[in-house]
């Protein structure tokens, strides 16, 4: 409303009260607040009278009640039928996050590959990436989930005719029964070794950067860290006497059972989320690379860098500035889209908490409020990160 402000700055002696832009804007805002307040008030009143009249007990007390139903996927949290509804919430959140993290990792890999492939000078590679992107991003995600779940994974053999994957366990229509790592005494040392290797890699990276800044000499940080992270734990692993073994599924009356079963619901969701989100990431990466001035490539070539080096040392770091913000929102989309698990019975937050728990308790208001708030918090945290990153990475113009 800058218009009015300019006008009011000028000396106008006879302005009716109602025409004063300041007062007008306050009246308008007051009206808006009143209307919103009224809407919220009437919703609350309606809800509470409706619930009270029907004798429905509200409140969050149900969270401590025993859930009584089973959940078939909970990799980190211990859950049984006697756990409370609040544990159900944490299991759901855990499954959503597991799905999201694995999905984001794979989608980023695939997306970057596709994005770079689309710009490849190799005709067949760029065409293939183009066709992939155009096909998959124009088909609804839910449909793709169903295609994977009921179309593709349902074609796997039945439990009796499981495919034996050797070291990787067994595969059938019921699940992929992967090897389950079993830790023995001394496994903690291996964990410490992994941590130590990571810390050392970070320190080496910092030292190498400092040295490069000072002397211009480069140090193969990637290879050193990779070697460190792989070798150090491996050495410790053998020193403490191989404290890791794998447990495999045993074949019983109903086919394989045990090991680390990955249900087809998870696989289908992961495949669909990854392949779908990768198309969007590919477009973002492509746009990011194209946004880097062509002169940068030419300059790199002039300096004698090879195409791979040019991409890695010059183009991608600059493109990242353009890529990161939309990439973050794609990560967020993937996390939100993981809620489609509800369609194929994977127990994520929406499916097991806003689905099963809601059905069992009937506490629709409370449960949907918790669920939506959780997603909201995840997305607010993500956008906070994005803003922080943007502020850090934005070009400082001198």
């Amino acid at each position: 409303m800058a218009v009015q402000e300019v006008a009011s700055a000028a000396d106008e002696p006879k302005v009716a009260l109602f025409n004063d832009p300041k007062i007008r804007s306050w009246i308008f805002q007051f009206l808006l607040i009143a209307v919103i307040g009224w809407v919220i008030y009437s919703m609350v009143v309606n809800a509470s009278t409706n619930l009270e009249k029907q004798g429905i007990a509200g409140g969050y007390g149900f969270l401590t009640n025993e859930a009584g139903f089973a959940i078939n996927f909970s990799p980190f949290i211990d859950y049984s039928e006697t756990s409370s509804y609040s544990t159900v919430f944490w299991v759901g959140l855990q499954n959503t996050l597991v799905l999201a993290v694995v999905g984001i990792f794979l989608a980023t890999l695939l997306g970057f590959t596709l994005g770079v492939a689309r710009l490849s000078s190799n005709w067949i590679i760029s065409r293939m990436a183009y066709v992939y992107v155009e096909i998959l991003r124009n088909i609804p995600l839910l449909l793709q989930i169903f295609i994977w779940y009921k179309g593709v994974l349902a074609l796997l053999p039945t439990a009796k005719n499981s495919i034996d994957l050797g070291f990787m366990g067994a595969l059938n229509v019921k699940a992929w029964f992967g090897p389950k790592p079993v830790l023995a005494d001394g496994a903690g040392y291996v964990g410490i070794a992994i941590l130590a290797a990571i810390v050392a890699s970070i320190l080496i990276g910092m030292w190498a950067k400092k040295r490069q800044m000072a002397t211009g000499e480069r140090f193969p940080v990637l290879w050193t860290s990779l070697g460190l992270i792989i070798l150090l734990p491996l050495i410790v692993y053998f020193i403490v006497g191989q404290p890791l073994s794998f447990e495999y599924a045993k074949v019983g009356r109903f086919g394989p059972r045990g090991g680390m079963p990955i249900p087809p619901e998870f696989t289908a969701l992961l495949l669909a989320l990854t392949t779908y989100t990768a198309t969007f990431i590919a477009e973002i990466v492509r746009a990011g690379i194209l946004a880097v001035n062509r002169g940068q490539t030419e300059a790199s070539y002039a300096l004698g860098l090879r195409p791979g080096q040019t991409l890695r040392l010059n183009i991608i770091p600059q493109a990242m500035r353009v890529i990161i913000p939309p990439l973050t929102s794609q990560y967020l989309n993937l996390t939100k889209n993981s809620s489609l698990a509800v369609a194929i019975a994977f127990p994520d937050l929406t499916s097991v908490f806003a689905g099963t728990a809601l059905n069992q308790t009937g506490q629709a208001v409370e449960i949907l409020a918790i669920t939506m708030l959780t997603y909201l918090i995840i997305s607010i945290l993500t956008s906070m990160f994005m803003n922080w990153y943007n502020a850090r990475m934005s070009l400082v113009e001198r």
Partner: protein
Amino acid sequence: MTDTNISVENVSFVRGKMDPALPPPASESGIVGWMKKNLFSGTSNTIFTLIAIWLIYLIVPGFLQWSLFDAVWSGSDRLACATTQQGGELPVGWSGACWPYIGTYMKQFIYGRYPDHELWRVNLVFVLFVIGLAPLLMPSIGHKKLNLILMLGVFPLVAFILLTGGSLNYSGFLLPNSIISPSLLKFWVDFIILSAVIVGVVIALKRATDSDPKPAVRQALFAMGVFALVMLIASTNFGLEEVETDKWGGLMLTMVIAITGIVASLPLGIMLALGRQSEMPFVRLFSVIFIEGWRGVPLITVLFMSSVLLPLFLPDGVTFDKLLRALIGVALFSAAYMAEVVRGGLQAIPKGQYEGAMALGLSFWQSMRMIILPQALKIVIPGIVNTFIGLFKDTTLVSIIGLLDVLGMINSSLSDPKWATPVQALSGYLFGAGLFWIFCFMMSRYSIFMERRLDTGHKS
């Protein structure tokens, strides 16, 4: 030049005339050359090419084999698509798409369970939609404003009456039921009272500011008149049979949800985008909370809310149609996304345009209506189309809350034992995927076309 005397003819070892240029070596031209340049230009490139060919070999022939060559094209029930092991006619181990199942269900996939003898109404709506939309999409055809009014004002009403059957019943909304019992009459009495109150308020406001109330009153009366006309037409009985929304389904329902969602979200999105840019703190705060709140949660939870919670938030005895509840959820959700698209357009307008509008002495709404929004909305047409594509794909989520859109219809057809075979699901989903793909791909092409056309080179 000392050797000018030496004539070319005398010197045998000097060629007298230019030879015609040789064609480039076979390895550099034609298909081979092209392949060498584009596919095998180096070791790594060759490896990539081979990997690509291997991938294509893995996917394409198998897919074509399954969906075309090995597919079943005729039959009347599952026997045609099942192997002898499964009690059908095909040899053991055979796997191919089952297209006759799609053929049988085609009508349901497109119209849902809409009554057979009323299908012409759906077709008519579709034809009207295409006739109205085609000129709107082509930038070269004029009369955009009239076209827009027809599409956004007249078409929805016509479509609504044709699809539902019209002849709505109103029961009034203002006076307590004890004065007049709920009826059409009460509604119009209520309506006249409301109009009178609005006109009164307008006059009072204008009087308070010492300005001429006539134009404002005229506007108010015009708006109420248009509204009354719409309500009147919607309640008129055209002799069409009522078709309840639970019979709607298939592609028709998908289109209804997507188009209603986008049309309803546009004005809402514009208001929210303006609100977010506003200098009034509470308006801005409200807009930001609204936009970020909807954008932060998955659509499916919004749909759950509309199907499970909305009834609880309404006063006792007031109920919404299930489809209408989903529509409200979809519209509010897409309005938040639309707001961000429009905001992008508003921010892209150079500051000089705002200042120019101010300098002309236009009020806020005038400058928005006449200067800013026409430019901003034009810039964001590709963004709007992209939002629409997203919404169109997202309509499949309503199948989770039990509405039978294309996907819901496919899912429900899968439970028909008459066609139950292992290949049924994949055939159905492939059909759905193809259908969505055609629509979405065309729209994304259009979006790119508009982007190129609108790109006036002003981008910094």
